[in-house]
């Protein structure tokens, strides 16, 4: 139970972290596409002029033209190996970093650049980024719902397990009571024990979870630098997951406490 709950919680938190970083990572960048010109030399010149203009634009941190090889790599999934195609005209791309906090008027920029050459496009990733974020947020809602359901089931499970154990101990409760133990004393005997059991159970469930998450992070680290940042958990999020056994412990403790007090209240 803890295992599944922790995984779902981790998933939700990972998506959250990823969305945040995609947002930050991509909002700071634009890309400019220059369609292939009449000749290679003209193309190079267009690229140089566009770069110049971009660097003179306020708010732009840096602008870098991707080499033909880099563009080829980007296009490879669609066009196959471009380098084999000789001088197939391919578009040129410029990767622009925007200063943090600055915002560029994309349409105006596009209009100015089009004076250099027809058909130049500026893409600020806004549209697809927004769709990605919407999608991720939906995933987050699903994961959080799973967390909520598993959490509720988990709380009920711990509650009922504790209740069952307490019914076995009814005679002990009665005996301690008859010997003159105060309600507090009797409740304490059971709630501290229940807390330890709940905590232990939670830790047992947590170990495979942590192993899974760790394996997941290792695996994604191997994928290396991708356009989309690899989802990871922050130390705080790790702490939240590690604290789950505390929750099971406390639920068990409170159940034991109130079962005992309820039982005791029936006796004079």
């Amino acid at each position, binding site marked *: 139970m803890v295992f599944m709950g922790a995984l779902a919680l981790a998933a939700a938190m990972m998506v959250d972290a990823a969305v945040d970083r995609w947002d930050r990572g991509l909002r700071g960048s634009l890309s400019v596409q220059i369609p292939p010109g009449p000749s290679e030399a003209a193309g190079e010149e267009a690229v140089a002029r566009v770069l110049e203009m971009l660097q003179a634009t306020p708010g732009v941190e840096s602008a870098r033209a991707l080499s033909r090889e880099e563009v080829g790599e980007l296009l490879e999934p669609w066009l196959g190996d471009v380098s084999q195609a000789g001088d197939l005209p391919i578009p040129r791309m410029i990767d622009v970093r925007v200063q943090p906090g600055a915002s560029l008027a994309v349409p105006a920029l596009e209009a100015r650049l089009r004076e250099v050459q027809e058909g130049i496009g500026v893409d600020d990733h806004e549209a697809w980024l927004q769709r990605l974020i919407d999608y991720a947020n939906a995933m987050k809602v699903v994961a959080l719902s799973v967390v909520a359901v598993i959490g509720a089931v988990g709380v009920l499970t711990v509650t009922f397990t504790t209740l069952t154990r307490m019914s076995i101990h009814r*005679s*002990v409760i009665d*005996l*301690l*009571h*008859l*010997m*003159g*133990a*105060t309600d507090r*004393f009797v409740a304490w005997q059971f709630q501290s024990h229940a807390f330890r059991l709940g905590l232990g159970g939670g830790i047992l469930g947590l170990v495979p979870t942590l192993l899974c998450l760790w394996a997941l992070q290792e695996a994604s680290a191997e994928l290396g630098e991708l356009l989309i940042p690899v989802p990871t958990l922050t130390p705080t999020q790790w702490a939240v997951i590690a604290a789950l056994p505390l929750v099971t412990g406390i639920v068990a403790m409170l159940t034991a406490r109130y079962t005992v007090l309820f039982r005791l209240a029936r*006796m*004079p």
Partner: protein
Amino acid sequence: MQPQFDSPFAVTDETPPIVEFGGVGLRYGRGPEVLHDIDLALPQGSFHFLTGSSGAGKSSLLGLMYLARRPTTGSIRMFGLEVDRLSRRRLPEVRRRIGVVFQEFRLLDHLTALDNVALPLRIAGIPEVDIRRNVTELLEWVGLGDHLRARPPTMSGGQQQRVAIARAVVANPSLLLADEPTGSVDDHSAARLMRLFEELNRMGTTIVIATHNRAIVEESGHPELRLEEGRLTLVPGSAQS
């Protein structure tokens, strides 16, 4: 012999009865009345047997004395306190002055003999060192020195009974209630247990023992509370007590 935790007692004529019942009736739920109109006063330091056939209500009467339930009618005073009027929070301290040997022992199976007997002392918050010393001494005295670490399920009925008795007396109660304490032991052990009770009584403990064992009752000469169909009559003892 006995561990002493209470202040020394003093028997005077003004001391109120340890147990005082006035017109007590008891029924379980909607069942028939099990005890009818019981009047009773047990002076401090007294020793009574409680007799009656099976189902006469002996255990029920003792249960009222150790505050397991409240009477359906009538009033009960313990140690001069009107326990019916006492708030629930004050009852634990009254219960701690009462030692009980339950008919079915009620030992905790998962605890050793030592820990079972130590229970009343732990409840009273006695330091652990004192607990060890007193409990070990007491268990040796009831002949269970070799069984300190044994758990009840591995002990014979007679051994369990002695653990139950040790637990009832370990905190030096003012009132000792024993329900068939000689039921599971042979005559020799029964006589030995009786000597333990006599000794506790000499040290001031008020004692009530429910029993079917006529021989013990006759031999001791203590007065007898006789229950017949839920009604109580007092049969004075033969001894010059």
